[in-house]
């Protein structure tokens, strides 16, 4: 393999990936003194510039594909490779675009934290891993980055490591992600056994992808490979039923949640599936579509009743990831990636706004000395007057989430729904349930988004800490406001198209469009956006009446309500049905180990000892007795033997008779 020539785009890619890594090393080496994060911010800025350069060079043009020899096993060489095609270039840019505002935001948000030097180090490590994941041209390398982002996420979730909930959450996140990692690893193993290479370009490239055939694989294993990769994506992208780690992961700093657990890392699963897309056959795609839909629907339901502002957003993230997965399942990975992009902006923004709110609530808490949960929306209300910019930006983000016209979300989500119906038309009848469920989930999205907005900003504050203490509330400081405004701009339509109502002109979709498309249903392209918008307006009105005007009609004690509040009791199920049996199994095995396996060994030892003491006894009584008798026999023979003589008649007699018996026996046997 010749050493690849270093072109400028290639260098830029390397710089984009490696700058955060350098920042990580520098920050880690500096230790406690690296408090202001200048190194990290500089690094991510350079990365952003480099990524923009790479994007300009790659988008719509030839991809960069290079590889260096890394190591060989046997005769098989493994490479470190880069593959920057449209999708990775987009991802590269997107990550940088989201990461920079978050970095800036963090300078204010994390100010004064005693462990802030760790924060910057971890954040840079994450950026490095995430950017590496985006450009990795080799599944093994991708896997490495994949685990590293998980590791960075582990570190950041548990950033406040003295909080019990945080460290429980990061452990849970890592272990559930490990399940996905196993899927990824097995997928790699299957592909490697089938095709003998892990290079993405060779496997799934445009020219003659290796996986156009099934290699050495049986169709069963081929499907299994697809499912294995999907398992990996399920854990990382928090798909039902492996989503339980993501709500808990909100224990990390909000800035981290916005970057990792909303915009980038959790979307990595979708990105992975888009990268290995040619691998999926019909079965796998169907499974993906259904899982995505279930996730989207279930998470939306769970989000309806949460009180923790971050949890609502977390479930919303899960729900949106479900939408993306469904998009992959429909075969429309370009739409999924588009939604990934728009979602990254608006969801990141939502978290940042939530962070600003929490920040203020924290101040109130400190000032008043009250003990209340600064993240609980029941303690908030009426913040619109005090935090107008936050209110405005968050509203924009929420509208994008709901899919209101003029936002990016409108374009991507409606495209997804349309494709869902188109896909259902190609499948058998029951498949129609999938896009319908998605549509319902989309309406639920509207409901919980408006509920959130209404409760936090518009409704009168309930009898809580905020009554009478308004004077202390004010908008977020400048370093937090600028990133919010920037992201708000990115959440609107102009970034993607000049035609705000039609997704047909989005440059992003054109750049990524797959070869095979679904037969278009023209009517849907008009009907669905209109219907969705109307539904959103209705929902907005209803929530306004319920929450702002205080005409809430439901009781919070219903079974469905509780089911939703407790997230379908899934977590409880895991805690009861999986963890304790596993711990019991391990305890039982340990018991077996100590008592049966080791007991056997100790038993052998005890047996040996018993045998030995028996032998010693026999030695003393029988053998030695014989010896003593023999000694008596040799009575007159010498001093040595004389000592063993008893001089007792009976002993001599015994000896005599014994010898006689022996003699008799000899005669008997000699005769026989």
């Amino acid at each position, binding site marked *: 393999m010749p050493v690849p020539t270093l072109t400028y785009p290639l260098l830029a890619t390397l710089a984009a990936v490696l700058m955060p890594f350098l920042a990580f090393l520098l920050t880690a080496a500096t230790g406690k003194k690296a408090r202001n994060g200048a190194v990290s911010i500089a690094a991510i800025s350079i990365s952003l510039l480099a990524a923009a350069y790479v994007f300009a060079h790659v988008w719509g043009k030839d991809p960069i594909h290079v590889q260096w020899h890394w190591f060989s096993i046997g005769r098989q060489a493994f490479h470190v490779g880069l593959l920057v095609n449209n999708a990775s270039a987009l991802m590269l840019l997107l990550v940088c675009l989201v990461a920079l505002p978050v970095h800036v935001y963090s300078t204010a948000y994390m100010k004064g934290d005693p462990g802030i030097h760790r924060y910057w180090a971890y954040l840079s490590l994450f950026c490095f891993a995430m950017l590496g994941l985006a450009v990795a041209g080799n599944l093994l390398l991708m896997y490495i980055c994949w685990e590293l982002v998980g590791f960075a996420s582990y570190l950041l979730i548990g950033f406040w490591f003295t909080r*019990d909930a945080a460290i429980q959450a990061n*452990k849970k996140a890592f272990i559930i992600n490990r399940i996905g990692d196993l899927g990824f690893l097995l997928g790699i193993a299957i592909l490697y056994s089938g095709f003998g290479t892990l290079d993405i370009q060779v496997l799934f490239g445009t020219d003659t992808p290796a996986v156009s055939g099934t290699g050495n694989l049986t169709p069963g294993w081929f499907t299994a490979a697809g499912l294995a990769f999907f398992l990996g994506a399920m854990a990382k992208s928090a798909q039902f039923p492996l989503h339980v780690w993501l709500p808990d992961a909100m224990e990390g700093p909000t800035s981290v949640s916005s970057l990792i657990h909303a915009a980038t890392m959790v979307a990595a699963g979708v990105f992975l599936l888009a990268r290995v897309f040619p691998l999926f056959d019909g079965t796998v795609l169907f499974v993906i579509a259904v899982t995505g839909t279930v996730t989207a629907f279930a998470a939306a339901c769970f989000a309806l009743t949460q009180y923790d502002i971050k949890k609502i957003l977390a479930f919303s993230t899960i729900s949106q990831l479900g939408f993306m997965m469904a998009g992959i399942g429909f075969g429309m990975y370009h739409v999924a990636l588009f939604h990934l992009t728009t979602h990254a902006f608006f969801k990141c923004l939502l978290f940042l706004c939530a962070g600003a709110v929490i920040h203020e609530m924290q101040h109130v808490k400190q000032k008043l000395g009250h003990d209340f949960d600064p993240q609980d929306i029941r303690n908030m209300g009426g913040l619109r007057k005090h935090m107008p910019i936050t209110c405005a930006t968050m509203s924009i983000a929420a509208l994008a989430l709901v899919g209101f016209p003029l936002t990016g979300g409108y374009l991507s989500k409606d495209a997804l729904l349309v494709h869902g119906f188109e896909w259902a038309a190609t499948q058998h009848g029951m498949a129609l349930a999938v896009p319908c469920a998605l549509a319902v989930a989309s309406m639920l999205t509207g409901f919980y988004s408006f509920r959130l907005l209404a409760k936090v900003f518009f409704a009168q504050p309930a009898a809580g800490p905020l009554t009478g203490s308004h004077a202390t509330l004010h908008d977020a400081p400048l370093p937090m406001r600028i990133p919010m405004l920037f992201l708000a701009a990115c959440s609107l339509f102009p970034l993607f198209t000049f035609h705000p109502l039609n997704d047909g002109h989005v440059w992003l979709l054109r750049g990524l469009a797959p070869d095979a498309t679904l037969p278009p249903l023209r009517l849907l392209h008009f009907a669905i956006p209109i219907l969705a918008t109307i539904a959103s307006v209705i929902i907005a009105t209803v929530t306004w009446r319920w929450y702002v005007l205080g005409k809430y009609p439901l009781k919070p004690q219903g079974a469905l309500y509780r089911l939703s509040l407790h997230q379908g009791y899934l977590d409880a199920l895991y805690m009861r049905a999986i963890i304790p049996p596993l*711990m019991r199994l391990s305890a039982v095995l340990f018991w077996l180990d100590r008592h049966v396996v080791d007991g056997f060994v100790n038993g052998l030892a005890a047996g040996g000892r018993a045998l030995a003491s028996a032998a010693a006894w026999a030695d003393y009584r029988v053998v030695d007795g014989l010896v003593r008798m023999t000694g008596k026999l040799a009575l007159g023979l010498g001093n040595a033997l004389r000592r063993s003589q008893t001089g007792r008649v009976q002993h001599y007699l015994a000896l005599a008779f014994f010898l006689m018996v022996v003699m008799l026996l000899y005669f008997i046997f000699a005769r026989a």
Partner: protein
Amino acid sequence: MNTHLLTLLIFTPLAAAALMSLVPSRGKGLHKYIALATGILQLVLSGAMYYLYRPTEAEHGIADEQLYQFASHVPWIRLDMGSLGRLEIDYAVGVDGLSLPLLFLSALVMVIAVGASWKVAKSVKGYFILLMILNMAVMGVFSALDFFLFYVFYELMLLPLYFLIGIWGGARREYAAIKFFLYTLFGSVFMLLVIVGLYFSVTNPATGAHTFNMLLMMDPANHVPGSVFSALAGQELFGIPARLLAFIVLFIAFAIKVPIVPLHTWLPDAHVEAPTPISIILAGILLKIGGYGILRICFGIFPDAALQSAWWLGLIGVVSIIYGALVALAQRDLKRMIAYSSVSHMGFVLLGAASFTTEGMAGAVFQMISHGFLSAALFFLVGMLYDRVHDRNIYHFRGLASVMPRFTVFVAIAFFASLGLPGFSAFIGEAFVIIGAFISGSTNGILPEWMAIAGSIGILLSAAYFLWTLQRMFFGLPRLKGGDAWAAALRADASARETLIMVPLIGLALLLGVYPALALDHINTSVLALVEWVNKVR
């Protein structure tokens, strides 16, 4: 190429031991400095050998002398035994890509162990002399090419270990020492029978006499026709093919060392009772001797039997992986948990070796090296904690991260490296074992795919127990069983000496994880030769 380098490496510790015995016990500091100097000298020597080694493709598989470098071959014992022929025992040593990395690992771990022994107070002289004898035996085991020589070193290893555990160990040291001793002896006694059988089955084509030379034993051309272990004769013992029986006997002997489930119970006891440096040596080197023996001797001399039993070996590997991990999950003693995690991690070695694919086998060797560094680091870390408060119970600590930040960083790195975080060596080892085991199904059909899948569950479980420990002991608000006294004792974070010991271990694990070619370039030719050697028998 310098042929005396290897001999020098092996016998330097013996000279050091002799020197130490001349130094009076009162000269307390001197012994450890001699030991340290010896260790560093060995490290330099083995490093030089590692650097000078040139991987060459062997034409005749692993029986080819070309493969073994730094070889020296001197007649040692020649005895005319009348009708039994001439006894031919040679001092034959040499290294290939299988043993050289392990040799380097041993040299490094020995230095670490000497560093960890710095605070030993009980009869220092005897301690370091025993350590040096152990050192020599270990080096000898990895480089011996004569089976008799191998056996001598193998048995020689036991004695110092027995005393090191039995005298300098913890509360139940005698029990642990005797258990360890008997377990190993049980394996090696039967090994001796096989050695003798092999001796009478193999002749040296050059002299016509029976020989103990391993390389000659490997080649079926040297087998005496009709002898008990001849590859062609197909003799049977107790109704089992003799070669299979011999393979099983040898395998059990080495598997006890690895250790495999259910022959592992000496390991937790020995580790828990042994002093920290000996735990480091046990985990870092001794376990590898088992794996090395299986690859070099079991597979090398009995490739046919190895193929026959490969499925079972894989199964044992998988069982060890999962069983070790599950039992580790139930531990309260930190050292015992790490001991069981060793069982689990060494299971990967067996699984990879049993796959008989280059990927799996190279992964297995790599895993051995990686585990050598990491388990040494882990046991050293436990020792650091134990030195300070004389307690290892996981439940007695909480929030150590706030008390000892530097120590916690080391522990976290070691834990994550051990649970297979990419970027560290364990990941490469485990990933390729899994890949190797998986492709075995489609390439040579030895291991079914489910074994790879089951093995990968071990990776998941290892994350569970390591993270649980991390969470339980190190995170959260500080709360120690010993109260302020402990807090005061623990306030002394990792000292300069301890940092100096940890950094190379973690650094090497990281280096090998990032650039595995460092080890794999050396391993490759030997593994390829071995795999082809075994596959030739099919």
